[in-house]
C-alpha cells in the first residue's frame, strides 16, 4: 500500500480547521436562504430548518400514502381482493381516517416497562430513517446537504434504527419483544456487512462518497443501442452487485422474505408487540420511511439517482423509490419467510462471501481495465 | 589446551555420572575421575613455568581467547598455571578421586547425583585454580558453591538444611563484598587497564597506577578494596571471627564432602588471598600487617582452644582446620620466601592431612555410626589399620618431622621469624607456636580416649576392619604426606620460584 496511508502531507499547522468545501451542487438550504436573502450562519440555520421540514414532510406524505393505503391496495391486488374503497376516491381518505384513529387511541403502558427507553424507542426509528434522507439527492435541487461522506452517512444514519429496535424490545418486558429485537439485531448484523461491502464495490467505480457525484458518475453513456443511449447506471455496469444490494437491503429494512423480526405467525409482532396508539404509529411510520430510504439508496447507488428522461428529477426519484416499495410488497406476497437459522446461514455463508467476491472481482476488473 | 581439556573432561564426566544409574555411579565416577588425575600429573611432568603468573613470570599451559567485551573492558578466557597453582591442581584431582572412592560405603541414596555433583565441583575447582582472568575465575569461584550447597543439604546429617543455608549465605555475601571491592579497584585503575586480566591488573596495581574513583583518593580506595576483599576471602578460609559456618558444615556434611571441604575448598580462600590481596596490594597488606597477624594468631589459638572443648571427632578436626589456616595467614603476611612459600606448601599439606583425618574419621563412623569421643574406646583393637593411619595423620597434624605438616609449619615459622613487615612478628610467631602444643594436646587426648583401652561400644553387629576400598585411599594419602614430608622440594621448589617475585616489593619493607 502507499505510504500515504499513515503519513501524508507535511506537518504544517494551517491554523484553522479545514473548512470542508461546499458541495458541487446547490443544495436545498442554499436555494431557500438565497431566496429569502439571508446569508451566513443565520441563513444556513433558517434554510436548513425549512429545507429539513420540507424533506421530512415529503417523506411523511409518501409514507402516509404508502402505509394505510397503497400497501393494502397492493396486497389486495395480489390476493385478488378489493381493499379500502369506501372513503374518498379510491379509498384515499382512509389515510386521514387511520391517522385520526390511531392518534386518538388510548396509550396502554404495560407493567414493568423500562420507561425512558420504552418512550424513546419509537422516536429513534423515524428519526434514523429521516436523517438518512439528509444526503439523498431527491432531484430537482431537493437535496438537503451534500457532504463529502454522503453515502457513508446515509448508511450510518439508517443503522441507528437497530438501536431503536433493541430499546423497544428490551424495554417492553415481553418475551416476544425481546426475541423480536434480538432477531432484528442478528439480521441487521448479518446483512449490514454485505450491504456496505457491496456499496464499496460501487464506490470503486465512482471514487467518491458524495452522493451527488455518485449520481453524476452514472450519467455517462454506457452503450448506445438502436439509437437509445443507455446511461452508465451501476445496475447495468455491475448487475451482480445490484442484486446483492437489493437482497441485503431487503434484510436491512426487515421486509419479506426477511421479516422475521416481526414474524406475526411466530412472535406476535416482535419488538412492537406492546406498543399502541401514537407509539405504534411512529414505529409504523419509521418502517415505511426506512423502506423508502432503502429505495433511495438503491436509486442513488445503482439507478442513477434522480436521472431520467423527459420527467423532472424529483419525479424519477419518486418513481424509483416507489418501484422498490412495490418490489417489497410483491415480495411480501410472493416469497415465503425464511427461518432464523436460514437467515443467518444465507447472510454469513452466502451474502458475505458473495459480497467479498464481488468486491474483489470488481477491484480486479477495474484494475485490469485501467 | 590441556587445562581446557582437563576441565571439559571433568564436566563431561559429571554429566555422564549424573545420567548413569545409581548402581554403577560410584565406580564410574571413580574411574572417570582418574582422567583428570592423569591429566594433572601429566601437567606436572611437563611443567616448565618460572616466576609468578601474576607478576609477569612465564605461565605454563597458557591460553588466552577473547570472550566478550563489556563497556570497554575485554573479558578473556585466560587460564594457565604457575608454581602456586599447579600443586593445588594436583591436590584437587587426587583428593577428589580419593573422596569419591571413600564415598562408596556411606552414600547409598541418590548416588548418581552425589557423584555427579562431586565431579562438577572438581571441574569448577580446577577452574578456580587455573583461571587467570578475573571474570572467569569469579564464575568458577561461585560455581563451586552450588554443588557444595547440595552436597551438604541433601546428603548431610540431621541439621543439614541449616548448615547448607548457613554455608551458602555466608559465602555468597562474602563473594559479593569481594566482587565489589575488586571491581572498585579495576575502576580505580581507570584507562591503564582495558581487561579484567589478573596479571595485567596485578602489574598495574603493583606499578602504582591506581587513581581515585568518584572523589575517593587512591589510598582510601586501596584500603577499602583490600578490606572488602580480605573479608570476602576470610569467610572462605575461614578466619576467626568468620568461621562459624565451618563446624556446622563439617559436622553435617558426609565425610567425603568434608574431605573436599577441608582439603580443597578452604584452600580457595587462602589461594585467593595470596593471589589478590597479597600479590596485588602488597603495600596495603604490609600496612595492615599487625591486625592481620593478630587475626592469624587469634585464629590459631582460638581454633585450637575450641577444638579442645569438642566431643565430636569431626568437630575437633574442623576446628583444628581453623587453627591450621591461621598459620597460613601468618605465613602469607610474613612476606618472606619461607613465609609465603611455606604458607602455600602448608595449603597442600593441610589439604592432604585434613583429608586423611576426615576420611579416617569417616571410616570409623561408617562402622560405629557415632563420632562422639565419649562413646568410643578401643577402636584400635577392632580396626587396627584404620586406626594406625589415623594416628599417623594426627601426628602429621601435630607437625611430626618427616611429615608434610612439619615441613609446612616449619617453613612458616622460619619465614615469620625472619619477617620484617612489623617489628612484632617474632612475638606473633611465638604466640602461634603455642598453638602447636594445644593441637598436640587435644589430638592426643582424643586419640587416647577413642582408640585405646577396652572396646565398649554396644552394637548389634560385629565391628571389624574396614573394607579394602576404604583403606586404600587412606594409605595413598599417608604415603603422599610422608613423601612430601621427606622431600618437600617436590613442590617447594616450584612454589619458592613462584612466590619469590612477590617479595621484591613486599619483603623489603
Amino acid at each position, binding site marked *: 500500500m502507499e505510504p500515504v496511508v499513515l503519513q501524508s502531507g507535511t506537518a504544517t499547522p494551517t491554523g484553522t480547521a479545514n473548512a470542508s468545501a461546499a458541495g458541487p451542487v446547490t*443544495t436545498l438550504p442554499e436555494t431557500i436562504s438565497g431566496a429569502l436573502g439571508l446569508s451566513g450562519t443565520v441563513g444556513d440555520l433558517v434554510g436548513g430548518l425549512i*429545507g429539513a421540514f420540507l424533506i421530512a414532510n415529503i417523506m411523511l406524505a409518501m409514507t402516509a400514502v404508502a402505509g394505510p393505503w397503497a400497501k393494502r391496495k397492493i396486497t389486495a391486488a395480489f390476493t385478488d381482493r378489493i381493499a379500502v374503497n369506501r372513503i374518498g376516491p379510491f379509498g384515499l381518505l382512509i389515510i386521514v381516517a387511520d391517522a385520526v384513529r390511531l392518534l*386518538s387511541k388510548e396509550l396502554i403502558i404495560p407493567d414493568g416497562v423500562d420507561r425512558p427507553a420504552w418512550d424513546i424507542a419509537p422516536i429513534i426509528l423515524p428519526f434514523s430513517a429521516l*436523517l438518512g434522507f439528509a444526503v439523498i439527492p431527491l432531484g430537482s435541487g431537493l437535496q438537503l446537504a451534500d457532504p463529502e461522506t454522503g453515502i457513508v452517512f446515509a448508511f450510518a444514519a439508517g443503522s441507528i434504527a437497530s438501536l431503536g429496535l433493541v430499546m423497544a424490545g428490551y424495554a417492553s418486558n415481553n*418475551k416476544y419483544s425481546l426475541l423480536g429485537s434480538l432477531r432484528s439485531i442478528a439480521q441487521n448484523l448479518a446483512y449490514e456487512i454485505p450491504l456496505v461491502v457491496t456499496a464499496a464495490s460501487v464506490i470503486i467505480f465512482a471514487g467518491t462518497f458524495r452522493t451527488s457525484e455518485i449520481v453524476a458518475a452514472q450519467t455517462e453513456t454506457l452503450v448506445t443501442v438502436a439509437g437509445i443511449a443507455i446511461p452508465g447506471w451501476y445496475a447495468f455496469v455491475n448487475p451482480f452487485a445490484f442484486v446483492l444490494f437489493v437482497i441485503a437491503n431487503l434484510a436491512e429494512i426487515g421486509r419479506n422474505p426477511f421479516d422475521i423480526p416481526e414474524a406475526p405467525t411466530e412472535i406476535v409482532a416482535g419488538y412492537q408487540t*406492546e406498543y399502541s396508539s401514537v407509539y405504534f404509529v411512529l414505529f409504523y*411510520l419509521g418502517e415505511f420511511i426506512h423502506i423508502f430510504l432503502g429505495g433511495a439508496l438503491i436509486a442513488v447507488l445503482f439507478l442513477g439517482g434522480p436521472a431520467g428522461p423527459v420527467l423532472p428529477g424529483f419525479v424519477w426519484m419518486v418513481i424509483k423509490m416507489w418501484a422498490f416499495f412495490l418490489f417489497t410488497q410483491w415480495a411480501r406476497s410472493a416469497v415465503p419467510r425464511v427461518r432464523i437459522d436460514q437467515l443467518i446461514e444465507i447472510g454469513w*455463508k452466502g451474502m*458475505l462471501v458473495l459480497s467479498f467476491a464481488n468486491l474483489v472481482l470488481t477491484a480486479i476488473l477495474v484494475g485490469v481495465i*485501467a | 589446551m590441556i587445562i581446557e581439556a582437563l576441565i571439559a573432561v571433568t564436566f563431561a564426566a559429571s554429566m555422564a555420572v549424573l545420567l548413569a544409574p545409581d548402581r554403577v555411579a560410584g565406580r564410574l565416577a571413580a574411574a572417570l575421575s582418574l582422567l583428570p588425575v592423569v591429566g594433572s600429573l601429566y601437567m606436572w611432568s611437563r611443567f616448565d613455568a618460572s616466576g609468578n603468573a601474576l607478576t609477569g613470570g612465564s605461565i605454563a599451559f597458557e591460553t588466552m581467547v577473547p570472550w566478550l567485551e563489556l563497556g570497554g573492558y575485554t573479558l578473556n578466557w585466560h587460564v594457565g598455571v604457575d608454581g602456586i597453582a599447579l600443586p593445588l591442581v594436583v591436590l584437587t584431582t587426587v583428593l577428589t578421586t580419593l573422596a569419591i572412592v571413600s564415598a562408596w560405603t556411606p552414600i547409598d541414596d541418590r548416588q548418581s547425583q552425589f557423584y555427579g555433583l562431586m565431579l562438577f565441583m572438581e571441574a569448577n575447582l580446577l577452574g578456580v585454580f587455573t583461571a587467570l582472568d578475573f571474570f572467569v575465575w569469579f564464575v568458577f569461584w561461585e560455581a563451586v558453591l552450588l554443588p557444595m550447597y547440595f552436597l551438604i543439604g541433601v546428603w548431610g546429617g540431621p541439621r543439614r538444611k541449616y548448615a547448607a543455608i548457613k554455608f551458602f549465605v555466608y559465602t555468597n555475601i562474602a563473594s559479593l563484598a569481594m566482587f565489589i571491592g575488586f571491581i572498585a579497584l579495576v575502576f580505580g585503575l581507570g584507562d591503564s587497564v582495558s581487561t579484567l586480566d589478573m596479571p595485567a591488573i596485578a602489574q598495574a596495581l603493583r606499578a602504582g597506577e591506581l587513581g581515585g574513583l568518584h572523589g575517593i583518593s587512591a589510598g582510601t580506595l586501596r584500603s577499602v578494596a583490600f578490606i572488602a576483599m580480605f573479608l570476602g576471602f576470610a569467610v572462605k578460609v575461614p578466619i576467626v571471627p568468620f568461621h562459624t559456618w565451618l563446624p556446622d558444615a563439617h559436622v553435617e556434611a558426609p565425610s567425603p564432602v568434608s574431605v573436599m571441604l577441608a582439603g580443597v575448598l578452604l584452600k580457595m580462600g587462602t589461594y585467593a588471598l595470596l593471589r589478590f590481596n597479597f600479590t596485588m596490594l602488597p603495600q596495603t597488606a604490609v600496612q595492615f600487617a599487625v591486625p592481620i597477624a593478630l587475626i592469624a594468631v587469634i585464629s590459631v589459638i582460638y581454633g585450637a582452644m575450641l577444638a579442645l572443648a569438642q566431643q565430636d571427632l569431626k568437630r575437633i578436626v574442623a576446628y583444628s582446620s581453623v587453627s591450621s589456616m591461621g598459620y597460613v595467614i601468618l605465613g602469607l603476611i610474613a612476606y618472606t620466601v619461607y613465609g609465603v612459600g611455606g604458607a602455600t606448601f602448608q595449603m597442600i599439606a593441610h589439604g592432604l592431612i585434613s583429608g586423611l583425618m576426615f576420611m579416617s574419621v569417616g571410616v570409623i563412623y561408617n562402622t560405629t555410626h557415632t563420632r562422639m569421643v565419649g562413646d568410643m574406646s578401643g577402636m584400635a583393637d577392632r580396626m587396627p589399620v584404620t586406626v594406625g593411619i589415623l594416628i599417623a595423620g594426627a601426628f602429621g597434624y601435630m607437625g611430626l618431622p618427616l611429615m608434610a605438616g612439619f615441613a609446612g609449619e616449619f617453613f612458616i615459622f622460619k619465614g615469620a621469624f625472619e619477617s620484617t613487615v612489623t617489628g612484632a612478628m617474632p612475638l606473633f610467631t611465638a604466640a602461634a607456636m603455642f598453638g602447636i602444643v594445644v593441637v598436640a594436646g587435644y589430638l592426643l587426648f582424643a586419640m587416647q580416649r577413642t582408640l585405646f583401652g577396652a572396646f565398649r561400644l554396644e552394637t548389634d553387629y560385629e565391628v571389624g576392619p574396614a573394607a579394602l576400598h576404604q583403606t586404600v585411599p587412606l594409605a595413598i594419602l599417608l604415603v603422599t604426606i610422608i613423601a612430601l614430608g621427606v622431600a618437600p622440594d617436590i613442590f617447594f621448589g616450584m612454589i619458592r620460584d613462584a612466590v619469590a617475585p612477590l617479595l621484591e616489593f613486599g619483603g623489603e619493607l
Partner: protein
Amino acid sequence: MNEWIAIGALGVVGVGIPIGMMVVSALLRPSITEQGKTVIYESGEVPTGTAHVQFNIQYYMVALLFLVFDVETVLIFPWTLIYRSALENGATLGQTLVPMLVFIGVLVVGLVWAWRNGAVEWVKSPRANRRKTERQS
C-alpha cells in the same frame, strides 16, 4: 460547515415530528385506567417469569463476528475511495490491489475458520453435537 447545519436541522425535525405527534396524540386520546389492561401480552395466558430470559448463545457469536467484519469495512472504505484515482495516477496494481487482497484474504481465513467451527451455525448440526459430546468424554 453549512451542510452539517442542514443535516442537524433534519435531525431536529426528525425528532420534532415524532414528539409533535406524541403531543397531538396526548391531547386527543382518552385515558381510562382499568386493571388487567396493562398486563403484558403473552398470547392471552397469564405471563410467567421474567421477560429477560437467557437467549441463544449464537446471538453473541453473531455479534462478535459482526464486530470484527464491520470494522474491517471501515478500513476497506478509504481504499475504495482512492483505488481508481490511484490507478489513474500511475500506481501499480502491486501497490493498490495486492495489499487489499492480502487483507481480505486474512479476513477470509478468519471467516472460513469461523464457518468451519460452527460460529455461524444457528442450530448445531448432529455432527457438531456429536463432536461436542465426544470432546467432553
